[in-house]
C-alpha cells in the first residue's frame, strides 16, 4: 500500500511541487474510495474539501426540474473543486462519482491554514488552481461556440 506522500507527486496537479511542501500538505490529505452514485458534494453545501482523482470518473452536475444535467466530467489526473479556496466556501454544483472512483481528499480549511502560514506554498498552490480554473474557463468558452452545430 503506497502512502499519500508517495502518490501526490505523481498526480499532474502536484507534479513538480517542492518536496518539503508535499510533506507539509500530506497531513491535510486522506485516501477516499467512492462507489458509483455517491456524491462528493452537493450544491450550496460547505466547500471544505478539495479532490484529486486517481482513478474513475466524477460528474459535475446541476439539478434541474427535469433531472440532473451533467455539465462536465472529471477523470484520472483531474482535480475537482476550487470553492474551498474562495469565500464564501460553498459548492456551486453537485459532484457525483459515476464509476468506482479513487480520490485523494484534502481538508480545505487545513490547506488554507498551511497556505496562510507559508505564503510561498500558497502562491505555488494558487498558480496550480488558477491553471485548472483557466482550463475550465477555456473549455466553457469553446463549448459556448457550439462548434458542432448544423450550419443549416
Amino acid at each position, binding site marked *: 500500500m503506497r502512502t499519500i506522500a508517495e502518490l501526490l507527486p505523481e498526480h499532474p496537479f502536484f507534479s513538480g511541487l517542492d518536496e518539503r511542501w508535499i510533506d507539509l500538505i500530506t497531513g491535510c490529505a486522506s485516501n477516499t474510495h467512492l462507489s458509483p452514485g455517491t456524491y462528493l458534494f452537493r450544491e450550496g453545501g460547505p466547500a471544505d474539501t478539495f479532490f484529486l482523482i486517481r482513478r474513475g470518473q466524477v460528474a459535475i452536475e446541476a439539478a434541474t426540474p427535469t433531472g440532473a444535467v*451533467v455539465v462536465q*466530467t472529471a477523470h484520472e489526473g483531474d482535480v475537482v473543486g476550487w470553492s474551498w479556496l474562495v469565500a464564501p466556501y460553498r459548492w456551486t454544483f453537485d459532484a457525483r462519482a459515476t464509476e468506482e472512483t479513487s480520490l485523494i481528499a484534502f481538508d480545505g480549511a487545513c490547506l488554507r491554514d498551511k497556505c496562510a502560514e507559508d505564503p510561498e506554498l500558497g502562491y505555488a498552490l494558487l498558480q496550480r488552481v488558477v491553471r485548472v480554473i483557466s482550463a475550465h474557463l477555456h473549455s466553457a468558452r469553446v463549448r459556448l461556440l*457550439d*462548434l*458542432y452545430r448544423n*450550419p443549416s
Partner: protein
Amino acid sequence: MVPRRFVVTGTRRDTDDTCTLDLTAADDQPLAFASGQFTMLSAFGVGEVPISISGDPAYPEVLRHTIRDVGGVTRSLVAARPGTMLGVRGPFGHGWEVADGRGGDVVFVAGGIGLAPLRPAVLEVCADRTSYGRVSLLYGTRTPGDILFGPDLRAWAREHDIDVEETVDAATHGWRGRVGVVTHLIDQASFDEAHALVLVCGPEVMMRYAAQALLDRGLAREQIRLSMERNMKCGVGLCGHCQLRELFLCVDGPVLTYDRLEPLLTRAEL
C-alpha cells in the same frame, strides 16, 4: 471535369441529420482513392458539393460517402435511395498519408462529422496495425446522438487495440461517458510526443484549439495534419473558391500540416 455516373447501392442513417451512401460505378470501373481525399458529388438537377470519402481505400469497388444534411444539395443526397444515379468527379486533393506515421504512435482527433474523412485513415492503420505503435482516436461531438460509426468505434477498440475516447459537449439522459471538450482528451491521451503523427479533422476552430493543445504537449507543427474543408467547387485549382491566401485547398489540401496553416487559421475572414 465531366462527372461519372454512380449508382446508390446502399444507404444507412447515421444520425438525425447524417447519412452514409454506398456507390458503385455504372461502368464497373472502381474509383481508386487515397484516405483523406474528396469527390465532387452531384445530385442531378440540384447541384454539386464536395464530400470526403469515408470508405475503405483497400476496397475501391464501393465508394462510400457520409453526408450531413446542411442545405439543398446535401438534403437531396441524404434522401437518395438505392438505385438513384449520382454524379462523381474526382477523387481530388492530398490525403492523410498516414503511412508516414509507421514506426511511431498515431493520434486521430475528430470533431463531429470530422470522423468521416478520418475513417479511411483509421482503416488503413487497422489493416497494418503492427507497423504502428500506440494508436488513439479522440472524438468529440455535440451530443451522444451525434456520434458516428458507433459499431466501428467499438470494433477498432476491441479488435485493433485502438484507444478510443469519446466526449460530448452536452450529455443526454443515460449517457455515462465523458462530458467536455475534445482538447481535454488530448491533454490526457497516452502517446510519445517525439514520435507521433496526429491527424485532426473537424470544425476549423476546433482544429485550431486541438493543434494548440498538441503544441502544448510538445509536438512539432510538422507532426500535426489538418483537413481543411472550405468551399471547393472545381476541384482542380482553377476557380479559386477554396482559396486560402496562397493555397488552393482542393489541390494543395485538403490535408495540410499545421506549420503551413497556423498563420492562416488565426486570421478572421481569411
